């Protein structure tokens, strides 16, 4: 009887030590769940979710501090993917954080720009090229359409241009089929 207890306690101690050692030696840096969530988010870094960027929002979702339907650029599709990842119910987008807008790219009116660099400091992906008292211009290929450059501009020279659909970016649309009337 005693040997049985001693054996069980011994096994427990060994497993406990093994777990303790692996908790230190095999510790994972960062929060893997937050990284998986960040991989789904659209990386617009716009702040509409209420957090200063996509990574902070991902961290908040991983900690359970934020809901999954706060990202308008991700759209309904993003909410669905997050719901699938976290194993929760998908819900409609929270309108208080904004509505999904068509993809746009910022454009600086060069006649008005005064070269103050305030927009350059605001852009989260460094998509504006320029320097103090030099012409500023948006690098269209890198612009994510987050609109963070619009408020700081003192002369209001930045506008958002929606991306028009051209041949290389054209997509087949969901077929709309005429159903046959049977009754």
């Amino acid at each position, binding site marked *: 009887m005693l040997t049985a207890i001693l054996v069980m306690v011994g096994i427990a101690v060994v497993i406990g030590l093994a777990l303790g050692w692996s908790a230190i030696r095999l510790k994972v840096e960062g929060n893997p769940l937050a990284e998986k969530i960040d991989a789904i988010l659209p*990386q617009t870094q716009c702040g509409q979710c209420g957090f200063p960027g996509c990574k902070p929002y991902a961290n908040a979702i991983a900690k359970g501090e934020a809901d999954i339907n706060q990202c308008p650029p991700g759209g309904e599709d993003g909410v669905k993917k997050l719901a699938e990842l976290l194993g929760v119910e998908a819900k409609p987008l929270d309108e208080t954080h904004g509505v999904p807008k068509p993809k746009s790219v910022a454009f600086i009116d060069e006649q008005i720009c005064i070269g103050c660099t305030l927009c350059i400091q605001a852009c989260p*992906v460094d998509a504006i090229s320029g320097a103090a008292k030099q012409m500023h211009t948006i690098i269209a290929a890198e612009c994510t359409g987050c609109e963070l450059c619009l408020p700081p501009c003192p002369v209001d020279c930045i506008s958002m241009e929606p991306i028009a659909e051209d*041949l290389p970016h054209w*997509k087949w649309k969901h077929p709309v089929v005429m159903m046959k009337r049977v009754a």
Partner: protein
Amino acid sequence: MSRELFRFKGGVHPPEHKTESNTRPVARAPVPSVLVIPVRQHIGNPAKPVVHVGQPVLKGQLIAAADGYISSAVHASTSGVISDIDLQPVAHVSGLPDLCITLVSDGRDEWIAHGPLDYQVMTPAALRLALRELGLAGLGGAVFPSAVKLDPGAAHPCHTLIINGGECEPWITCDEMLMRERADAILQGVTVMRHLLGCTDILVGIEDNKPEAIVAMQTAATQLDFAVDIIAVPAIYPGGGAKQLIYTLTGKQVPSGKLSTDIGIQVFNVGTAYALARAVFQGEPLISRWVTVSGHVLRPQNFEALIGTPIHTLIAHAGERSGATGVLMGGPMMGMTLPDLSAPVVKATNSILVKSAALFPPLPGALPCIRCTRCADVCPAELQPQELFRFAKAGDFGRAQEYHLFDCIECGCCSYVCPSHIPLVDYYRYAKSEIWAREKEKRAADLARERHEFRQFRLEREKKEKAEKLAAKAQAKRAELTAAPASEAAASEVDAKKALIAAAMARAQAKKAEAEPKNTESLSAVTQREIEEIEARRAKIRELARSPLESEKNP
């Protein structure tokens, strides 16, 4: 010679309609007055224009250069003057325009100086570069730049070369006529292909509904000094599909998601072989191709048409008829409805099919899917169309990919047999399109994340560097000041700092004094009086500005 042939699963037998257009000899379509040549005619990057508006060009002159590895050049189809480089309607189902080079013909059809390539002396790389510069692309439908396909690559040796003379789609006869009338040239092209790829087995697959073509090719093959197997394959749609023809002739299946070159087989269309022969033995770039014009026209036939010919011009040459309900580019199974007939003939245009209500009765409305699986029975890629339809409709693209959506060749056999008349292929095209668009977005998002993270890192780095610089500067200044008065070696940190601050303040005072006007004190009487007069004048003007104008006082 008898050779074991294999029968792929599925396929359908739509009515062939070949005799309408294969009884007349091929005609050379007249040079149109205006040619519209798109720069995007092939898979890969569109070509970049190298001419400017107003420039005169000769027939065969390079007008757009290949851009990137998977790309092909574009040439002027006749001599004339470039009138525009802008967006024009092209043959695309969306109706969106694309960048085209518009060429106004001068009527002379004058060739640029050109000559044969010494292909046996040139290095393979040089020959492939020359073919790329001559605009060679696959004419079987996919329009893949041929120079890339003619590179065997070190990974998998290419032992079997298959020349595709299948032409399984109804109504289309351009490849059949090419084999009947240009068999020698086709096999000349095959000679060059064999030279570049080093294949040992060369097979030509021709459907057995083209007996004259088979005889013509067999006769031409006897003139060659290497063996070419001309094989008649059973006529079935889509037996001319590359993967289907490979299976029929060799019994080998291309694994899902892989290319035929991964099993050592390369396939080229007979039209591509012919264009290759023209390129190597005459030095002619790809500026024309054989096009079938059939269906609801007076004289269905094949034309040798210049690239850039407006499609309505070709229809007019074949004899336009009233009662046309639409025009397809391609055949009835895989063809694309042309939204605009001013779109030009491009390298991919194998056929123009004019529809009428009698030939192409309008489809009845669709009914729900009844899971009869007739579509699965006929799918030549051995897929499950009913499942793919269900997933595509629901937007479940992950599952669609699990069911091998990207192995679908969009042949249309499934929608052909569907008793509910559901346009199945449109759903697969939609699903593929969405998946590609999402992958693109994901790549863009990953790039944006990288840029954002680098920006965070850069800001941190700048802060650190600034702090370090200031600390270093302070250190240097302190060292300077403590170095001069050596006797005060025992001076404390605080005193040294105080000295620094005092010195800085003195410098600032001096600078301020410099900037101040120095002539405002102890003025002479004359200057003082002048100043008083000016001040009085200013005061008077201020008074006047405050009181209303004379004109306003009495309206």
